[in-house]
Protein backbone atom coordinates (compact mmCIF):
# COMPACT_ATOMS: atom_id res chain seq x y z
CA UNK A 1 0.00 0.00 0.00
CA UNK A 2 2.85 2.36 0.82
CA UNK A 3 4.72 1.31 -2.23
CA UNK A 4 5.28 4.21 -4.59
CA UNK A 5 4.40 3.86 -8.22
CA UNK A 6 7.27 4.28 -10.58
CA UNK A 7 6.94 7.48 -12.53
CA UNK A 8 6.79 7.24 -16.29
CA UNK A 9 10.10 7.91 -17.80
CA UNK A 10 8.71 10.34 -20.32
CA UNK A 11 7.26 12.61 -17.71
CA UNK A 12 9.31 15.23 -16.11
CA UNK A 13 9.51 14.22 -12.43
CA UNK A 14 9.69 17.85 -11.47
CA UNK A 15 6.26 18.50 -12.86
CA UNK A 16 4.46 15.28 -12.23
CA UNK A 17 4.26 13.00 -9.35
CA UNK A 18 2.12 10.06 -8.59
CA UNK A 19 -0.98 10.58 -6.55
CA UNK A 20 -1.40 8.88 -3.27
CA UNK A 21 -4.33 6.51 -3.22
CA UNK A 22 -7.22 8.05 -1.38
CA UNK A 23 -10.02 5.72 -0.53
CA UNK A 24 -12.65 8.38 0.16
CA UNK A 25 -12.11 10.20 -3.07
CA UNK A 26 -12.04 7.03 -5.08
CA UNK A 27 -15.47 6.20 -3.68
CA UNK A 28 -16.55 9.70 -4.59
CA UNK A 29 -15.83 9.28 -8.28
CA UNK A 30 -18.47 6.63 -8.57
CA UNK A 31 -21.13 9.02 -7.37
CA UNK A 32 -22.13 11.99 -9.41
CA UNK A 33 -23.49 14.94 -7.57
CA UNK A 34 -25.57 15.76 -10.64
CA UNK A 35 -28.55 17.92 -9.89
CA UNK A 36 -31.06 18.29 -12.66
CA UNK A 37 -32.13 21.81 -11.79
CA UNK A 38 -28.66 23.14 -11.10
CA UNK A 39 -27.44 21.78 -14.42
CA UNK A 40 -30.44 23.07 -16.26
CA UNK A 41 -29.94 26.55 -14.88
CA UNK A 42 -26.22 26.44 -15.50
CA UNK A 43 -26.70 25.42 -19.11
CA UNK A 44 -29.44 27.98 -19.44
CA UNK A 45 -27.37 30.89 -18.22
CA UNK A 46 -24.29 29.88 -20.16
CA UNK A 47 -25.55 31.85 -23.15
CA UNK A 48 -24.90 35.58 -22.93
CA UNK A 49 -27.99 36.37 -25.01
CA UNK A 50 -30.13 34.62 -22.44
CA UNK A 51 -28.59 36.56 -19.57
CA UNK A 52 -29.24 39.76 -21.48
CA UNK A 53 -32.84 38.89 -22.30
CA UNK A 54 -33.63 37.73 -18.79
CA UNK A 55 -32.22 41.07 -17.68
CA UNK A 56 -34.47 42.87 -20.14
CA UNK A 57 -37.56 41.01 -18.96
CA UNK A 58 -36.75 41.72 -15.33
CA UNK A 59 -36.21 45.36 -16.20
CA UNK A 60 -39.54 45.54 -18.05
CA UNK A 61 -41.33 43.94 -15.13
CA UNK A 62 -39.68 46.22 -12.59
CA UNK A 63 -40.41 49.27 -14.71
CA UNK A 64 -44.04 48.32 -15.21
CA UNK A 65 -44.45 47.69 -11.48
CA UNK A 66 -42.66 50.75 -10.21
CA UNK A 67 -43.42 53.36 -12.84
CA UNK A 68 -47.15 53.50 -12.04
CA UNK A 69 -46.31 53.70 -8.33
CA UNK A 70 -43.80 56.50 -8.46
CA UNK A 71 -44.83 58.54 -11.46
CA UNK A 72 -47.28 61.38 -11.10
CA UNK A 73 -48.22 61.49 -14.78
CA UNK A 74 -51.82 60.48 -15.30
CA UNK A 75 -51.93 58.26 -18.37
CA UNK A 76 -55.63 58.96 -18.89
CA UNK A 77 -55.40 62.73 -18.66
CA UNK A 78 -56.95 64.11 -21.80
CA UNK A 79 -56.07 67.51 -23.08
CA UNK A 80 -58.87 69.71 -24.28
CA UNK A 81 -56.50 71.82 -26.33
CA UNK A 82 -56.14 70.47 -29.86
CA UNK A 83 -52.65 72.02 -29.81
CA UNK A 84 -51.52 69.39 -27.35
CA UNK A 85 -52.73 66.48 -29.46
CA UNK A 86 -50.38 64.31 -31.48
CA UNK A 87 -47.28 66.10 -30.20
CA UNK A 88 -43.93 64.94 -31.44
CA UNK A 89 -41.43 63.61 -28.92
CA UNK A 90 -40.07 66.38 -26.70
CA UNK A 91 -38.46 66.79 -23.31
CA UNK A 92 -41.83 66.90 -21.62
CA UNK A 93 -43.26 63.96 -23.50
CA UNK A 94 -40.41 61.61 -24.32
CA UNK A 95 -42.38 59.68 -26.87
CA UNK A 96 -44.90 62.36 -27.78
CA UNK A 97 -48.61 62.41 -27.09
CA UNK A 98 -51.45 60.53 -28.69
CA UNK A 99 -54.64 61.69 -30.44
CA UNK A 100 -56.00 63.23 -27.24
CA UNK A 101 -52.78 64.54 -25.79
CA UNK A 102 -52.07 61.65 -23.42
CA UNK A 103 -48.45 60.95 -22.65
CA UNK A 104 -47.33 57.87 -24.58
CA UNK A 105 -44.38 57.07 -22.31
CA UNK A 106 -46.66 56.86 -19.28
CA UNK A 107 -49.35 54.93 -21.12
CA UNK A 108 -46.84 52.41 -22.37
CA UNK A 109 -45.78 51.42 -18.85
CA UNK A 110 -49.31 51.16 -17.57
CA UNK A 111 -50.01 49.11 -20.67
CA UNK A 112 -47.07 46.80 -20.07
CA UNK A 113 -48.19 46.26 -16.50
CA UNK A 114 -51.76 45.37 -17.42
CA UNK A 115 -50.73 43.24 -20.36
CA UNK A 116 -48.24 41.35 -18.23
CA UNK A 117 -50.86 40.67 -15.59
CA UNK A 118 -53.26 39.46 -18.22
CA UNK A 119 -50.56 37.45 -19.94
CA UNK A 120 -49.47 35.76 -16.71
CA UNK A 121 -53.06 34.98 -15.83
CA UNK A 122 -53.72 33.42 -19.23
CA UNK A 123 -50.43 31.52 -19.11
CA UNK A 124 -51.29 30.14 -15.68
CA UNK A 125 -54.74 29.05 -16.71
CA UNK A 126 -53.79 27.63 -20.10
CA UNK A 127 -50.75 25.78 -18.92
CA UNK A 128 -52.24 24.88 -15.53
CA UNK A 129 -55.45 23.39 -16.84
CA UNK A 130 -53.57 22.06 -19.83
CA UNK A 131 -51.14 20.11 -17.67
CA UNK A 132 -53.83 18.60 -15.48
CA UNK A 133 -56.04 17.66 -18.40
CA UNK A 134 -53.02 16.45 -20.36
CA UNK A 135 -51.84 14.26 -17.49
CA UNK A 136 -55.27 12.70 -17.07
CA UNK A 137 -55.56 12.27 -20.79
CA UNK A 138 -52.14 10.67 -21.05
CA UNK A 139 -52.61 8.25 -18.17
CA UNK A 140 -56.17 7.19 -18.77
CA UNK A 141 -56.62 5.24 -21.96
CA UNK A 142 -60.40 5.24 -21.66
CA UNK A 143 -60.43 9.02 -21.74
CA UNK A 144 -58.49 9.12 -24.98
CA UNK A 145 -61.27 8.89 -27.63
CA UNK A 146 -63.41 11.34 -25.70
CA UNK A 147 -60.61 13.88 -25.34
CA UNK A 148 -59.60 13.58 -28.97
CA UNK A 149 -63.19 14.21 -29.98
CA UNK A 150 -63.39 17.18 -27.62
CA UNK A 151 -60.16 18.52 -29.03
CA UNK A 152 -61.39 18.17 -32.62
CA UNK A 153 -64.67 19.85 -31.85
CA UNK A 154 -63.19 22.69 -29.87
CA UNK A 155 -60.59 23.51 -32.44
CA UNK A 156 -63.12 23.32 -35.26
CA UNK A 157 -65.75 25.71 -33.95
CA UNK A 158 -64.62 29.17 -35.05
CA UNK A 159 -63.91 31.12 -31.89
CA UNK A 160 -65.60 34.19 -33.34
CA UNK A 161 -68.96 32.43 -33.13
CA UNK A 162 -68.94 31.95 -29.40
CA UNK A 163 -66.93 35.07 -28.66
CA UNK A 164 -69.60 37.21 -30.29
CA UNK A 165 -72.21 35.44 -28.18
CA UNK A 166 -70.11 35.85 -25.07
CA UNK A 167 -69.76 39.55 -25.76
CA UNK A 168 -73.50 39.69 -25.94
CA UNK A 169 -74.20 38.23 -22.52
CA UNK A 170 -71.31 39.62 -20.50
CA UNK A 171 -69.99 43.00 -19.37
CA UNK A 172 -66.87 44.36 -20.91
CA UNK A 173 -64.33 43.72 -18.22
CA UNK A 174 -60.98 42.11 -17.63
CA UNK A 175 -62.79 39.01 -16.41
CA UNK A 176 -64.72 38.61 -19.66
CA UNK A 177 -61.57 39.14 -21.61
CA UNK A 178 -59.81 36.55 -19.52
CA UNK A 179 -62.58 34.00 -19.91
CA UNK A 180 -62.77 34.44 -23.65
CA UNK A 181 -59.03 34.20 -24.11
CA UNK A 182 -58.61 31.25 -21.78
CA UNK A 183 -61.57 29.36 -23.18
CA UNK A 184 -59.67 27.40 -25.78
CA UNK A 185 -55.95 27.51 -25.02
CA UNK A 186 -56.07 24.81 -22.39
CA UNK A 187 -57.13 22.02 -24.72
CA UNK A 188 -54.28 22.77 -27.10
CA UNK A 189 -51.87 22.68 -24.18
CA UNK A 190 -53.49 19.51 -22.87
CA UNK A 191 -52.83 17.76 -26.16
CA UNK A 192 -49.24 18.93 -26.14
CA UNK A 193 -48.64 17.67 -22.61
CA UNK A 194 -50.46 14.42 -23.28
CA UNK A 195 -48.13 13.70 -26.19
CA UNK A 196 -45.05 14.64 -24.22
CA UNK A 197 -46.05 12.63 -21.17
CA UNK A 198 -46.72 9.57 -23.30
CA UNK A 199 -43.42 9.85 -25.10
CA UNK A 200 -41.55 10.40 -21.82
CA UNK A 201 -43.24 7.47 -20.15
CA UNK A 202 -42.39 5.20 -23.04
CA UNK A 203 -38.91 6.54 -23.60
CA UNK A 204 -36.09 4.01 -23.46
CA UNK A 205 -34.36 5.26 -20.34
CA UNK A 206 -37.54 5.07 -18.36
CA UNK A 207 -38.33 1.61 -19.62
CA UNK A 208 -34.78 0.60 -18.80
CA UNK A 209 -35.11 2.09 -15.35
CA UNK A 210 -38.36 0.25 -14.85
CA UNK A 211 -36.70 -3.02 -15.89
CA UNK A 212 -34.03 -2.40 -13.29
CA UNK A 213 -36.80 -2.39 -10.72
CA UNK A 214 -37.17 1.32 -10.06
CA UNK A 215 -40.62 2.03 -8.68
CA UNK A 216 -43.01 3.94 -10.92
CA UNK A 217 -43.27 6.52 -8.19
CA UNK A 218 -39.56 7.16 -8.28
CA UNK A 219 -39.57 7.32 -12.07
CA UNK A 220 -42.41 9.79 -12.01
CA UNK A 221 -40.77 12.03 -9.43
CA UNK A 222 -37.18 11.78 -10.59
CA UNK A 223 -37.49 11.50 -14.35
CA UNK A 224 -40.85 12.60 -15.62
CA UNK A 225 -42.01 15.44 -13.42
CA UNK A 226 -38.79 17.51 -13.53
CA UNK A 227 -38.88 17.34 -17.29
CA UNK A 228 -42.57 18.23 -17.41
CA UNK A 229 -41.94 21.19 -15.13
CA UNK A 230 -39.37 22.56 -17.50
CA UNK A 231 -41.84 22.08 -20.35
CA UNK A 232 -44.43 23.95 -18.32
CA UNK A 233 -42.03 26.84 -17.86
CA UNK A 234 -41.29 26.89 -21.55
CA UNK A 235 -44.94 26.79 -22.59
CA UNK A 236 -45.83 29.48 -20.09
CA UNK A 237 -43.06 31.69 -21.43
CA UNK A 238 -44.32 31.24 -24.98
CA UNK A 239 -47.90 31.83 -23.89
CA UNK A 240 -47.33 35.33 -22.55
CA UNK A 241 -46.44 37.12 -25.79
CA UNK A 242 -49.12 35.15 -27.57
CA UNK A 243 -51.83 36.30 -25.22
CA UNK A 244 -50.75 39.92 -25.53
CA UNK A 245 -51.19 39.61 -29.27
CA UNK A 246 -54.51 37.80 -28.94
CA UNK A 247 -55.93 40.66 -26.94
CA UNK A 248 -55.99 42.77 -30.11
CA UNK A 249 -58.21 40.21 -31.81
CA UNK A 250 -60.59 40.16 -28.87
CA UNK A 251 -61.07 43.89 -29.22
CA UNK A 252 -61.91 43.32 -32.86
CA UNK A 253 -64.64 40.83 -32.01
CA UNK A 254 -66.01 43.10 -29.33
CA UNK A 255 -65.16 41.22 -26.16
CA UNK A 256 -62.66 43.87 -25.32
CA UNK A 257 -61.73 45.43 -22.04
CA UNK A 258 -63.26 48.66 -20.76
CA UNK A 259 -62.55 51.61 -23.03
CA UNK A 260 -60.36 53.36 -20.51
CA UNK A 261 -58.25 50.27 -19.89
CA UNK A 262 -54.68 50.66 -20.99
CA UNK A 263 -53.05 47.55 -22.37
CA UNK A 264 -50.31 47.12 -24.91
CA UNK A 265 -52.74 45.60 -27.39
CA UNK A 266 -55.05 48.54 -26.95
CA UNK A 267 -52.30 51.10 -27.44
CA UNK A 268 -50.94 49.38 -30.54
CA UNK A 269 -54.47 49.17 -31.90
CA UNK A 270 -55.09 52.86 -31.37
CA UNK A 271 -51.75 53.82 -32.85
CA UNK A 272 -52.43 51.69 -35.89
CA UNK A 273 -55.14 54.04 -37.11
CA UNK A 274 -52.71 56.91 -37.39
CA UNK A 275 -49.61 54.87 -38.08
CA UNK A 276 -48.74 56.52 -41.38
CA UNK A 277 -49.22 59.98 -39.98
CA UNK A 278 -47.65 59.67 -36.55
CA UNK A 279 -45.36 56.66 -36.72
CA UNK A 280 -43.58 57.69 -33.53
CA UNK A 281 -46.74 56.97 -31.57
CA UNK A 282 -46.25 53.32 -32.41
CA UNK A 283 -42.52 53.32 -31.75
CA UNK A 284 -42.46 52.72 -28.04
CA UNK A 285 -45.44 50.38 -27.58
CA UNK A 286 -44.61 48.18 -30.54
CA UNK A 287 -40.94 48.26 -29.61
CA UNK A 288 -41.78 46.95 -26.16
CA UNK A 289 -44.16 44.42 -27.66
CA UNK A 290 -41.39 43.17 -29.96
CA UNK A 291 -38.95 43.00 -27.09
CA UNK A 292 -41.35 40.99 -24.97
CA UNK A 293 -42.10 38.59 -27.79
CA UNK A 294 -38.47 38.05 -28.69
CA UNK A 295 -37.33 37.78 -25.09
CA UNK A 296 -39.95 35.25 -24.03
CA UNK A 297 -39.59 33.31 -27.22
CA UNK A 298 -35.84 32.99 -26.91
CA UNK A 299 -36.02 32.33 -23.18
CA UNK A 300 -38.66 29.66 -23.69
CA UNK A 301 -36.70 27.88 -26.38
CA UNK A 302 -33.34 28.10 -24.67
CA UNK A 303 -34.93 26.84 -21.52
CA UNK A 304 -36.36 23.89 -23.40
CA UNK A 305 -32.87 23.16 -24.74
CA UNK A 306 -31.32 23.54 -21.32
CA UNK A 307 -33.90 21.29 -19.73
CA UNK A 308 -32.87 18.40 -21.96
CA UNK A 309 -30.33 16.43 -19.88
CA UNK A 310 -28.45 15.48 -23.03
CA UNK A 311 -27.38 19.10 -23.36
CA UNK A 312 -26.03 19.25 -19.82
CA UNK A 313 -22.63 17.83 -20.58
Amino acid sequence: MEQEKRPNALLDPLKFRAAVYDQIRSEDAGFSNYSYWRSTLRTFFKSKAVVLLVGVVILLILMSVFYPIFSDVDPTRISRLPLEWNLRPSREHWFGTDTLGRDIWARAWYGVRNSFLLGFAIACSDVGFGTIAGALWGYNKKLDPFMIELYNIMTNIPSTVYLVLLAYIMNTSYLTLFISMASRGWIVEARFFRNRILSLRDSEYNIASKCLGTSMRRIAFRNIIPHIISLIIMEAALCIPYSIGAEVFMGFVGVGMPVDAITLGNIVNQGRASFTLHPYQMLLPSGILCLITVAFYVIGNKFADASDPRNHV
Partner: protein
Amino acid sequence: MRKYILSRILRSLITVAIVFVAVFMLLRLMPLSGYFPQEILKETDEATRMTYLRNQGLLDHPLLQLWRFLQRLFQGDLGRSLTVYPKVPISTLLKEKIPVTAAFGFASMVTGIVLGIALGLLMVRYKDKWGDRAGTVYILLVRAIPSLIYLFFIQVWVSKWFHLPLVFYKNRPSSWILPTICLSLGSIAYYALWLRRFMVDEENRDYVKFAQVKGLSKKEVLRRHVFKNAVIPLTVYIPTDLLFIISGSLIIETLYAIPGTGGLLTSAIKAQDNNLVQVIVLMYAVLSVVGVFLGDLLVAFVDPRIKLTEGE
Protein backbone atom coordinates in the same frame (compact mmCIF):
# COMPACT_ATOMS: atom_id res chain seq x y z
CA MET B 1 -56.64 -1.35 -42.62
CA ARG B 2 -60.10 -1.02 -44.10
CA LYS B 3 -61.61 -1.34 -40.66
CA TYR B 4 -59.32 1.41 -39.45
CA ILE B 5 -60.29 3.74 -42.27
CA LEU B 6 -63.99 3.04 -41.77
CA SER B 7 -63.82 3.79 -38.08
CA ARG B 8 -61.83 6.94 -38.74
CA ILE B 9 -64.43 8.12 -41.23
CA LEU B 10 -67.24 7.37 -38.82
CA ARG B 11 -65.55 9.28 -36.03
CA SER B 12 -64.82 12.19 -38.34
CA LEU B 13 -68.44 12.32 -39.37
CA ILE B 14 -69.48 12.51 -35.74
CA THR B 15 -67.04 15.35 -35.11
CA VAL B 16 -68.28 17.30 -38.11
CA ALA B 17 -71.89 16.73 -37.11
CA ILE B 18 -71.34 17.94 -33.57
CA VAL B 19 -69.41 21.00 -34.69
CA PHE B 20 -72.04 21.87 -37.25
CA VAL B 21 -75.05 21.41 -34.99
CA ALA B 22 -73.36 23.33 -32.19
CA VAL B 23 -72.62 26.29 -34.45
CA PHE B 24 -76.06 26.11 -36.01
CA MET B 25 -77.74 26.27 -32.63
CA LEU B 26 -75.41 28.96 -31.29
CA LEU B 27 -76.29 31.14 -34.25
CA ARG B 28 -79.98 30.85 -33.40
CA LEU B 29 -79.30 32.27 -29.95
CA MET B 30 -78.33 35.62 -31.41
CA PRO B 31 -80.75 38.53 -30.94
CA LEU B 32 -83.24 39.14 -33.73
CA SER B 33 -82.22 42.76 -34.13
CA GLY B 34 -78.82 41.52 -35.23
CA TYR B 35 -80.22 40.59 -38.63
CA PHE B 36 -80.58 44.24 -39.53
CA PRO B 37 -77.92 46.85 -40.04
CA GLN B 38 -78.39 50.15 -38.29
CA GLU B 39 -79.70 52.01 -41.35
CA ILE B 40 -82.52 49.51 -41.67
CA LEU B 41 -83.36 49.41 -38.00
CA LYS B 42 -83.93 53.14 -37.99
CA GLU B 43 -86.03 53.10 -41.11
CA THR B 44 -88.34 50.23 -40.30
CA ASP B 45 -90.86 49.45 -37.62
CA GLU B 46 -90.92 46.31 -35.56
CA ALA B 47 -93.79 44.74 -37.51
CA THR B 48 -92.09 45.13 -40.88
CA ARG B 49 -88.95 43.57 -39.47
CA MET B 50 -90.83 40.60 -38.10
CA THR B 51 -92.53 40.19 -41.46
CA TYR B 52 -89.18 40.08 -43.12
CA LEU B 53 -87.76 37.58 -40.65
CA ARG B 54 -90.79 35.36 -40.92
CA ASN B 55 -90.61 35.36 -44.71
CA GLN B 56 -86.97 34.37 -44.47
CA GLY B 57 -87.91 31.47 -42.21
CA LEU B 58 -85.80 32.80 -39.36
CA LEU B 59 -88.60 32.69 -36.82
CA ASP B 60 -89.19 28.95 -37.21
CA HIS B 61 -87.96 26.49 -34.63
CA PRO B 62 -84.18 26.00 -34.94
CA LEU B 63 -84.61 22.25 -35.45
CA LEU B 64 -87.02 22.88 -38.30
CA GLN B 65 -84.50 25.29 -39.82
CA LEU B 66 -81.79 22.67 -39.41
CA TRP B 67 -83.94 20.05 -41.11
CA ARG B 68 -84.72 22.42 -43.98
CA PHE B 69 -81.06 23.27 -44.39
CA LEU B 70 -80.06 19.61 -44.52
CA GLN B 71 -82.79 18.80 -47.00
CA ARG B 72 -81.60 21.55 -49.31
CA LEU B 73 -77.99 20.59 -48.76
CA PHE B 74 -78.63 17.10 -50.09
CA GLN B 75 -80.25 18.62 -53.13
CA GLY B 76 -77.05 20.59 -53.66
CA ASP B 77 -78.54 23.93 -52.63
CA LEU B 78 -76.44 25.84 -50.12
CA GLY B 79 -79.02 28.57 -49.68
CA ARG B 80 -78.65 32.30 -50.07
CA SER B 81 -76.69 34.78 -48.03
CA LEU B 82 -78.82 36.83 -45.64
CA THR B 83 -77.09 40.02 -44.70
CA VAL B 84 -73.56 40.23 -46.03
CA TYR B 85 -74.53 39.64 -49.66
CA PRO B 86 -78.33 39.77 -49.49
CA LYS B 87 -79.99 37.11 -51.62
CA VAL B 88 -76.83 36.09 -53.45
CA PRO B 89 -76.63 32.29 -53.72
CA ILE B 90 -73.86 31.04 -51.45
CA SER B 91 -72.63 28.63 -54.09
CA THR B 92 -72.09 31.57 -56.46
CA LEU B 93 -70.19 33.43 -53.78
CA LEU B 94 -67.92 30.52 -53.04
CA LYS B 95 -67.40 29.84 -56.71
CA GLU B 96 -66.25 33.43 -57.18
CA LYS B 97 -64.12 33.75 -54.11
CA ILE B 98 -62.44 30.41 -53.57
CA PRO B 99 -60.41 30.34 -56.82
CA VAL B 100 -58.86 33.73 -56.09
CA THR B 101 -57.89 32.87 -52.54
CA ALA B 102 -56.80 29.37 -53.49
CA ALA B 103 -54.50 30.67 -56.22
CA PHE B 104 -52.77 32.96 -53.77
CA GLY B 105 -52.83 30.32 -51.07
CA PHE B 106 -51.23 27.75 -53.32
CA ALA B 107 -48.59 30.13 -54.64
CA SER B 108 -47.69 31.25 -51.14
CA MET B 109 -47.66 27.69 -49.84
CA VAL B 110 -45.23 26.63 -52.55
CA THR B 111 -43.11 29.71 -51.90
CA GLY B 112 -43.29 29.06 -48.19
CA ILE B 113 -42.21 25.43 -48.47
CA VAL B 114 -39.44 26.04 -50.99
CA LEU B 115 -37.96 29.08 -49.30
CA GLY B 116 -38.67 27.73 -45.83
CA ILE B 117 -36.84 24.49 -46.51
CA ALA B 118 -34.01 26.36 -48.19
CA LEU B 119 -33.68 28.64 -45.19
CA GLY B 120 -33.90 25.70 -42.79
CA LEU B 121 -31.16 23.87 -44.65
CA LEU B 122 -29.03 26.99 -44.67
CA MET B 123 -29.45 27.33 -40.94
CA VAL B 124 -28.44 23.73 -40.31
CA ARG B 125 -25.59 23.81 -42.78
CA TYR B 126 -24.13 26.87 -41.08
CA LYS B 127 -25.31 26.03 -37.60
CA ASP B 128 -24.17 28.61 -35.03
CA LYS B 129 -22.64 30.66 -37.85
CA TRP B 130 -23.95 33.57 -39.90
CA GLY B 131 -26.56 31.54 -41.77
CA ASP B 132 -28.14 30.28 -38.59
CA ARG B 133 -28.07 33.69 -36.98
CA ALA B 134 -29.59 35.49 -39.95
CA GLY B 135 -32.33 32.88 -40.14
CA THR B 136 -33.05 33.16 -36.43
CA VAL B 137 -33.26 36.94 -36.66
CA TYR B 138 -35.70 36.62 -39.57
CA ILE B 139 -37.88 34.14 -37.70
CA LEU B 140 -37.88 36.28 -34.59
CA LEU B 141 -38.73 39.45 -36.48
CA VAL B 142 -41.61 37.89 -38.35
CA ARG B 143 -43.01 36.63 -35.08
CA ALA B 144 -42.36 39.68 -32.98
CA ILE B 145 -43.22 42.72 -35.06
CA PRO B 146 -46.96 43.31 -35.23
CA SER B 147 -47.79 42.05 -38.70
CA LEU B 148 -49.73 45.13 -39.69
CA ILE B 149 -46.63 47.25 -39.41
CA TYR B 150 -44.43 45.30 -41.74
CA LEU B 151 -47.28 44.44 -44.12
CA PHE B 152 -48.07 48.10 -44.44
CA PHE B 153 -44.43 48.92 -44.96
CA ILE B 154 -44.18 46.34 -47.74
CA GLN B 155 -47.29 47.60 -49.43
CA VAL B 156 -46.38 51.26 -49.49
CA TRP B 157 -42.60 51.37 -49.66
CA VAL B 158 -41.54 48.14 -51.32
CA SER B 159 -44.15 48.71 -54.01
CA LYS B 160 -42.68 52.15 -54.58
CA TRP B 161 -39.10 50.93 -54.81
CA PHE B 162 -39.86 48.18 -57.29
CA HIS B 163 -42.66 50.04 -59.11
CA LEU B 164 -45.21 47.40 -58.27
CA PRO B 165 -48.97 48.07 -58.13
CA LEU B 166 -50.42 48.96 -54.74
CA VAL B 167 -53.36 46.61 -54.99
CA PHE B 168 -54.22 43.42 -56.75
CA TYR B 169 -55.40 43.43 -60.36
CA LYS B 170 -56.45 40.25 -62.09
CA ASN B 171 -54.86 41.16 -65.40
CA ARG B 172 -51.56 42.56 -64.10
CA PRO B 173 -49.30 39.70 -62.99
CA SER B 174 -46.87 42.14 -61.38
CA SER B 175 -49.55 42.91 -58.83
CA TRP B 176 -49.61 39.29 -57.67
CA ILE B 177 -46.06 39.36 -56.36
CA LEU B 178 -46.37 41.39 -53.18
CA PRO B 179 -49.47 39.65 -51.77
CA THR B 180 -47.88 36.26 -52.38
CA ILE B 181 -44.72 37.30 -50.61
CA CYS B 182 -46.67 38.76 -47.72
CA LEU B 183 -48.71 35.60 -47.41
CA SER B 184 -45.65 33.38 -47.36
CA LEU B 185 -43.53 35.37 -44.88
CA GLY B 186 -45.02 33.54 -41.95
CA SER B 187 -44.90 30.06 -43.46
CA ILE B 188 -41.29 30.49 -44.53
CA ALA B 189 -40.41 31.16 -40.91
CA TYR B 190 -42.56 28.25 -39.79
CA TYR B 191 -41.02 25.67 -42.12
CA ALA B 192 -37.48 26.91 -41.54
CA LEU B 193 -37.91 26.82 -37.77
CA TRP B 194 -39.24 23.29 -37.59
CA LEU B 195 -36.96 21.88 -40.24
CA ARG B 196 -34.00 23.23 -38.33
CA ARG B 197 -35.33 21.83 -35.07
CA PHE B 198 -35.99 18.37 -36.51
CA MET B 199 -32.68 18.23 -38.38
CA VAL B 200 -30.72 19.22 -35.30
CA ASP B 201 -32.57 16.50 -33.39
CA GLU B 202 -31.74 13.97 -36.09
CA GLU B 203 -28.11 15.00 -36.18
CA ASN B 204 -27.69 13.88 -32.57
CA ARG B 205 -28.87 10.38 -33.45
CA ASP B 206 -26.48 7.51 -33.32
CA TYR B 207 -26.91 6.52 -36.94
CA VAL B 208 -25.74 9.95 -38.04
CA LYS B 209 -22.65 9.75 -35.90
CA PHE B 210 -22.05 6.30 -37.28
CA ALA B 211 -22.39 7.52 -40.84
CA GLN B 212 -19.88 10.26 -40.15
CA VAL B 213 -17.52 7.81 -38.52
CA LYS B 214 -17.83 5.71 -41.67
CA GLY B 215 -16.35 8.70 -43.47
CA LEU B 216 -19.33 10.30 -45.19
CA SER B 217 -18.99 14.06 -45.55
CA LYS B 218 -21.27 16.23 -43.46
CA LYS B 219 -23.00 17.47 -46.58
CA GLU B 220 -23.61 13.94 -47.74
CA VAL B 221 -25.01 12.88 -44.38
CA LEU B 222 -27.32 15.86 -44.25
CA ARG B 223 -28.58 15.25 -47.74
CA ARG B 224 -28.87 11.48 -47.71
CA HIS B 225 -30.09 10.80 -44.21
CA VAL B 226 -30.85 13.70 -41.97
CA PHE B 227 -32.98 15.71 -44.36
CA LYS B 228 -35.19 12.81 -45.33
CA ASN B 229 -35.91 11.87 -41.76
CA ALA B 230 -36.41 15.45 -40.63
CA VAL B 231 -38.97 16.20 -43.30
CA ILE B 232 -41.27 13.40 -42.20
CA PRO B 233 -42.79 15.18 -39.20
CA LEU B 234 -43.42 18.20 -41.45
CA THR B 235 -45.40 16.19 -44.00
CA VAL B 236 -48.21 15.58 -41.50
CA TYR B 237 -49.37 19.14 -41.91
CA ILE B 238 -49.07 19.39 -45.67
CA PRO B 239 -52.54 18.02 -46.56
CA THR B 240 -54.19 20.33 -44.04
CA ASP B 241 -52.23 23.29 -45.33
CA LEU B 242 -53.10 22.34 -48.87
CA LEU B 243 -56.81 22.09 -48.14
CA PHE B 244 -56.84 25.31 -46.19
CA ILE B 245 -55.37 27.39 -48.96
CA ILE B 246 -58.99 28.30 -49.59
CA SER B 247 -59.20 30.24 -46.33
CA GLY B 248 -57.49 33.51 -46.99
CA SER B 249 -55.86 36.04 -44.74
CA LEU B 250 -58.16 38.81 -43.58
CA ILE B 251 -55.45 41.46 -43.29
CA ILE B 252 -53.59 40.79 -46.51
CA GLU B 253 -56.72 40.43 -48.61
CA THR B 254 -58.00 43.68 -47.20
CA LEU B 255 -54.74 45.53 -47.82
CA TYR B 256 -54.41 44.38 -51.41
CA ALA B 257 -58.16 44.41 -52.19
CA ILE B 258 -58.18 40.74 -53.09
CA PRO B 259 -61.77 39.57 -53.50
CA GLY B 260 -61.22 36.32 -51.64
CA THR B 261 -62.59 34.43 -48.69
CA GLY B 262 -60.33 36.10 -46.11
CA GLY B 263 -62.81 38.11 -44.10
CA LEU B 264 -65.86 36.15 -45.17
CA LEU B 265 -66.39 34.09 -42.03
CA THR B 266 -65.70 36.93 -39.62
CA SER B 267 -67.91 39.40 -41.42
CA ALA B 268 -70.63 36.80 -41.79
CA ILE B 269 -70.56 36.10 -38.07
CA LYS B 270 -70.56 39.76 -37.18
CA ALA B 271 -73.43 40.51 -39.55
CA GLN B 272 -75.24 37.44 -38.26
CA ASP B 273 -75.50 35.92 -41.71
CA ASN B 274 -76.51 32.49 -40.41
CA ASN B 275 -76.81 30.84 -43.79
CA LEU B 276 -73.35 31.86 -44.82
CA VAL B 277 -71.75 31.05 -41.46
CA GLN B 278 -73.13 27.54 -41.29
CA VAL B 279 -72.00 26.69 -44.82
CA ILE B 280 -68.48 27.98 -44.19
CA VAL B 281 -68.21 26.25 -40.82
CA LEU B 282 -69.39 23.00 -42.34
CA MET B 283 -66.88 23.35 -45.15
CA TYR B 284 -63.95 24.12 -42.87
CA ALA B 285 -64.85 21.36 -40.43
CA VAL B 286 -64.94 18.78 -43.22
CA LEU B 287 -61.67 20.07 -44.65
CA SER B 288 -59.87 19.99 -41.33
CA VAL B 289 -61.01 16.45 -40.55
CA VAL B 290 -60.06 15.29 -44.02
CA GLY B 291 -56.75 17.12 -43.75
CA VAL B 292 -55.76 15.39 -40.52
CA PHE B 293 -56.74 12.04 -41.92
CA LEU B 294 -54.79 12.52 -45.14
CA GLY B 295 -51.83 13.75 -43.10
CA ASP B 296 -51.78 10.50 -41.15
CA LEU B 297 -52.04 8.46 -44.32
CA LEU B 298 -49.27 10.46 -45.96
CA VAL B 299 -46.89 9.99 -43.06
CA ALA B 300 -47.57 6.27 -43.00
CA PHE B 301 -46.85 6.27 -46.69
CA VAL B 302 -43.54 8.15 -46.61
CA ASP B 303 -42.29 6.58 -43.39
CA PRO B 304 -42.62 2.80 -43.48
CA ARG B 305 -41.80 2.62 -39.77
CA ILE B 306 -45.10 4.24 -38.88
CA LYS B 307 -48.15 2.00 -38.82
CA LEU B 308 -51.63 3.42 -38.43
CA THR B 309 -53.07 0.28 -36.91
CA GLU B 310 -51.60 -1.58 -34.02
CA GLY B 311 -50.73 -5.24 -34.24
CA GLU B 312 -50.83 -5.52 -37.98
